[in-house]
C-alpha cells in the first residue's frame, strides 16, 4: 500500500472482488454442494452391513463397528488408505471372509459364503491362462448353468461390449494389462450377478489405461444399472465413478463419512467440479489420517484431538 496515485483504486476493484466471490460461490454451488451425506436405512438396502467387526488371527482389528447400507443400483466406492479394512469389508460381502462380529446380509438374507448373486473382481485380471478370452467366459457361464447353445453368443456379446472384438480366440498372455482387465470385466458381466464387487480392479494399470477403463465401466454401469461396490485408494477414481463414496480410516478400520455424489453422469476426468470435490475429499482423508490439512483461513482453537464425528463442514479454504 502506498500513496494513492490514481483517482481511487477501490471503485474498479469492488466489482472484480464481487465477481471472484461469485465465482467461488458458484463453484461451491456446482460441486461441493453436490456432495451430500448419505442416509440409507437398512429397510431400503440391498446390501446391509450392521455393526460389523473383524479381527484377523494375528489380532489386527481390520474392521470395527462398521455400518453400511447399499441400495440396489448404487455405485458405492469404498475409499481409504491402505489398512483401513476396505478390502476386508469387500471380501466379507463376497463371502470370502467370515467376519468375527456383526452381520452382513443381501436382500435381507445373511451372507454365507460366495453366491451366484455376487461376483468379486480382483486387482489382477485372474483369467484362466489356458483358456482363450471366449473360453474364459463360456467356462464361467457353464459353471452358472447356462445352456451350451447360449454360451458362445453371450460371450461374444460381452466381448464386444468391452471392446475386445477380434480377440475372442486370444490367450490371456497375449493381451496387454488393460485388455486382460477388460476380458475379466466381460467375464464378470456375462455371468450377470446382481452385485459386482471390485477390489481395486484398475490399480495395476497405467494412468491412461485406467481412465479408459473407468469410462468403459461407467458407460456399462449406466447401461446395466448393476449394484457395484468398488474398493479404491484413488480419490479421483472414487469420485469419477461412484454415486456414493464411503470414506474409511485405519487402525481400527471404520467408516468415517458416507457421501452421495450428485455429479451428473457420464463424468469427465478433467471436469472442474469433480476436481474440486477431489481436493475436498483429499482434505477430509488427511484429516482422518491425523495429518494436518492444507492451512485453512479459520484456524481452529488449540483443542484436544479433533473429534472424528465428522459433520459436513463449511467450504474449506483454497
Amino acid at each position, binding site marked *: 500500500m502506498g500513496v494513492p496515485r490514481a483517482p481511487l483504486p477501490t471503485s474498479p476493484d469492488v466489482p472484480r472482488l464481487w465477481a471472484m466471490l461469485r465465482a467461488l460461490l458458484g463453484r461451491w454451488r456446482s460441486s461441493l454442494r453436490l456432495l451430500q451425506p448419505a442416509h440409507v436405512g437398512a429397510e431400503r438396502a440391498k446390501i446391509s452391513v450392521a455393526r460389523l467387526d473383524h479381527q484377523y488371527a494375528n489380532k489386527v482389528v481390520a474392521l470395527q463397528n462398521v455400518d453400511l447400507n447399499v441400495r440396489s443400483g448404487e455405485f458405492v466406492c469404498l475409499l481409504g488408505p491402505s489398512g483401513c479394512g476396505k478390502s476386508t469389508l469387500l471380501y466379507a460381502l463376497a463371502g470370502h471372509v467370515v467376519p468375527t462380529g456383526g452381520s452382513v446380509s443381501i436382500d435381507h438374507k445373511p451372507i454365507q459364503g*460366495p453366491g451366484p448373486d455376487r461376483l468379486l473382481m480382483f486387482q489382477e485380471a485372474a483369467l484362466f491362462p*489356458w483358456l482363450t478370452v471366449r473360453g474364459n467366459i463360456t467356462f464361467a457361464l457353464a459353471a452358472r448353468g447356462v445352456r451350451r447353445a447360449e454360451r458362445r453368443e453371450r460371450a461374444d456379446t460381452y466381448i464386444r461390449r468391452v471392446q475386445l472384438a477380434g480377440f475372442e480366440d486370444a490367450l490371456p498372455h497375449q493381451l496387454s494389462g488393460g485388455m486382460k482387465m477388460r476380458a475379466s470385466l466381460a467375464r464378470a458381466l456375462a455371468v450377470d450377478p446382481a452385485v459386482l464387487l471390485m477390489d481395486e480392479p484398475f490399480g495395476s494399470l497405467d494412468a491412461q489405461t485406467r481412465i479408459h477403463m473407468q469410462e468403459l465401466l461407467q458407460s456399462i454401469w449406466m447401461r446395466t444399472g448393476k449394484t457395484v461396490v468398488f474398493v479404491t485408494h484413488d480419490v479421483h477414481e472414487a469420485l469419477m465413478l461412484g454415486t456414493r463414496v464411503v470414506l474409511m480410516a485405519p487402525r481400527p478400520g471404520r467408516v468415517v463419512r458416507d457421501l452421495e455424489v450428485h455429479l451428473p453422469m457420464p463424468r469427465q476426468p478433467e471436469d472442474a467440479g469433480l476436481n474440486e470435490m477431489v481436493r475436498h475429499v483429499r482434505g477430509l482423508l488427511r484429516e482422518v489420517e491425523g495429518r494436518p490439512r492444507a492451512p485453512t483461513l479459520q484456524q481452529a482453537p488449540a483443542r484436544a484431538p479433533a473429534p472424528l464425528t465428522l459433520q459436513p463442514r463449511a467450504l474449506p479454504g483454497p
Partner: protein
Amino acid sequence: MKHHAQKLLLVALLLGLWELVARLGIWSPHLLPGPMTVARSLAAMLADGRLVGATGRSLGRLARAYLMSVALGVPLGLLISRIPFFRNAVKPVVMGLQALPSICWLPLALLWFGLTDGAILFVVVMGSVLAIAIATEDSVNGVDPQLTQVASTLGVRGLRFHFGVLLPAALPGIVTGLKLGWSFAWRALLAGELLFVSGGLGQLLTVGRELMDVPQVMAVMVAIVVIGTAVDRVLFQTVEVRLRRRWGLTVAA
C-alpha cells in the same frame, strides 16, 4: 546351430578317443572293442530284427506300466493335496516308500507274480507312481490362489473345479513330474528286464554278457541311451514347451 556343432564335435572327439584307446591294445579287444566293432554289432542286431523286437517289447511293457502309473499317480497326488486324511496319513507313507529304490520291489514281485510280465510291470509302476504322485501334489499345492478364489466367486465347484481349474492350472508342474516319472520307469524297466528271460532290451544285455559278447552289450547300451533321449526329447520336451507357451509361462520364442 553353433551349439549343435559343438555337441557333434564332442561326440566325435569321444568316439575318436575310444577308438584310440581300443587300438592301443592295453586291454583285450574282447573286453574293450572299438566303436566300429560296436557299430557293426548294432547294425547286425538291427538287420536280424533282434533289436527292433526287443525294443518293441520293452517299450510296450513300459507304455502299459507307465499309463498305469499316471492313472494311479495323478489322482493320488490330487487326493493328497486336497483331502486332509491323505495329506496327514498317506503322504508320509508315500514319502517313505519313495526312499526305496524300485529294484528292491523285484524279489517281492517275483514271489507274487512269478517270472511274468506282471512282475516287471509291478516294479515299473512302483518305481514311478510315487514320484508322479508327489510331483502332482506339489504342483497342485502351488496353484495360484487367485485362480482358486476366482473359481469360487464364479461358482465353479466340484468336478468342474477339479478338472477344469485345478488340474489345468497345475498341468505344467504335473508334466514335469510325468517326465521325472518316465525316467524312473525307464530305469526300473531295464533293471527288471535284466534279471530274467523277458525278451526285452534288458535281456539282450544279459545274453550279451552270457555269451561274452562285449560289442553286443555296448551296442544295446547305445540303443538304450538313444531311445531314452529320443522319448525325453521328442515326447516330453515338445509337450512341455507347447504347454508352457500356451499357459504363457515362457515368452514365446
